[in-house]
């Protein structure tokens, strides 16, 4: 049940992009067509869901005072987390290049840039500060990734539709994406404040 709650919470209630505004650069840059947005979204889900438990293990068994080294090594947290994320992204990049060269080309620089996507490092750091356990951190990775994925394909579909609109020239492109992100954030505020744990207690 806890797994499910964390998933719902991170996907809808506290959406990475639309509540915390994390991972904005690729969110704005790769949301021009649904197809590429879909690919990048899947890549983010995968990277988040894989790095989160690995980082959890590192944080728990290597860095803490109870870890195998027995000393407080938490100052290494950032560097190790980034290293894990970078290697995962490298893996994803190789897979995509092999499986779908066209997607690889359309994602361009933004695929390796997932490494420094703040949603991913942010996810790992949230995991530490919220003291999730292993299963919760998997749920958080999947949920956060799914929320990010949903947000980027929704924005991409809107931007595809807007291609036929008479948007004022000054707002075309990024300007419109910013306004849309703000309005989408407002729409996602509808679910903010729901506390799923209240209802799981009753059951």
């Amino acid at each position, binding site marked *: 049940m806890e797994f499910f709650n964390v998933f719902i919470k991170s996907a809808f209630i506290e959406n990475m992009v639309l509540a915390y505004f994390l991972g904005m650069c690729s969110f704005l840059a790769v949301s021009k067509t649904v197809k590429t947005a879909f690919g990048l979204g899947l890549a983010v889900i995968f990277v988040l869901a894989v790095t989160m438990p690995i980082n959890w293990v590192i944080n728990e068994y290597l860095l803490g005072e109870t870890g195998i080294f027995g000393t407080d090594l938490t100052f290494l947290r950032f560097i190790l987390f980034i290293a894990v994320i970078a290697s995962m992204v490298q893996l994803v990049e190789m897979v995509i290049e092999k499986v779908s060269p066209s997607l690889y080309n359309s994602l361009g620089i933004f695929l390796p840039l997932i490494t420094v996507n703040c949603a991913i490092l942010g996810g790992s750091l949230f995991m530490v500060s919220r003291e999730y356990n292993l299963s919760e951190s998997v749920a958080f990775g999947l949920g956060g990734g799914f929320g990010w994925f949903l947000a980027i394909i929704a924005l991409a*579909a809107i931007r595809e539709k807007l291609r036929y*609109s008479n948007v004022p020239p000054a707002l075309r492109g990024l300007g419109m994406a910013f306004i849309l992100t703000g309005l989408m954030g407002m729409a996602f505020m*509808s*679910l*903010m404040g729901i506390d799923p744990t209240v209802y799981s207690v009753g059951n």
Partner: protein
Amino acid sequence: MSLLKFLKKIEPDKKSSPFLHTLFDGFFTFAYAPDTVTKGGVHIKDGMDLKRLMVHVVLVLQLCYAFGSLNIGHQHFAALGMYPDFLDAFHLKITYGLIQLIPIFVVAHLVGLGIEFWYAAKKGHAIEEGFLVSGALIPLIMPPDVPLIWLALAVAFAVIIGKEAFGGTGMNIFNVALLSRAFIFFAYPTEMAGDTMISGKEVWVSGLEFDAAQLAEGVKQQVSYYHWWSHGVFDNLFSAFGWRTFGEGGVAVADSFTGATPLGLAKTGGWAAVAEVYTPTQMWWGGLPGSIGESCKPFIIVGAAALVAMKVASWRVMVGMIIGCALTGMLMNGFTAGYEDPSLSYLQIPWYYHFYMGSFFFSMAFMATDPVTAASTNRGKWIYGFFIGAVGLIIRVMNPAYPEGWMLAILFMNVFAPLIDHYVLESNMTKRLKRA
């Protein structure tokens, strides 16, 4: 010389005075069908142009306006403990309601149409009629005592950011009327939550302003509200006929007055708390405090049926929304059956009572079916409507931050409508490719 010839003669020149020409064109096409027909756009159905399509919605809304203006007056007098019967002192209630409603209507239109005219003149195209419907809907979803400056700001926000930035009528992603309501909701949260103790103002029941010093002592006294230039003039008229008059104002609020809506009561104590104050019949006919035009369900259903019959609104969205809401309500009932926990009492409200409370039908008939912001494929409309029903009920019941869910649920699904369409189209394409 016929009137038409005269009108053609006074038509301002488009080059030398673009704004006047836009203005003229806007009103001219109201009175006469233009000889140019629709060439493209989003609502092609027959030779009927967009303006005539939209007028249907405005006509259907008149029932809500009539009921709304009577209800404003009724709630006002009910709070003062006067004329408890709904049709009692009819002339006072309807006059009071109109005095309250007309400025809201005028301000919404002045600001909205003003911006629209300005943009039309600036961009050099004819006036886009999109604001006709939004302008008719906005007053109905406002609280009866909304300060006019809030209203003006909200309408300006909705029209500029929500519509003109997207390229004008037919291009907007978010429902313009709901954006203006959401703006007020998020910009003035204390007042909109009905917290009179802080603001000294009750926006949900008209005509009540409380004095801060008296409120501190727990006395809710209506403070000098009737104006000599509006209510006073009518008082002179009514007394000439020997009818009842408004009187001086400054009447104390009745002890029984709480201003609580069914949804507010349901949030605290479930169905039992609602049933103490309101009967289902009363909620069905809508003599409750709330937004101006949302409460009378029979009139709204008549309107919805008329819109479906005239093929202006999509029945798929409406039915989808009812199914979504009913299913979610049944699931909530099913999961909580047998528990005594008071925190679950809202979830245990029988699902069919959710249709009695709040503004479900108004949102269903006039907001969700907006053809621009809804999904435009038939299958997409089912999905879109279903999720509005489900998400709206989840927000209403499970989110303690908001009293009602439909506004936010529709905005939420507006975000996903293009995505739904995209995937419906994709699946159709793959299906046909397979068949070929």
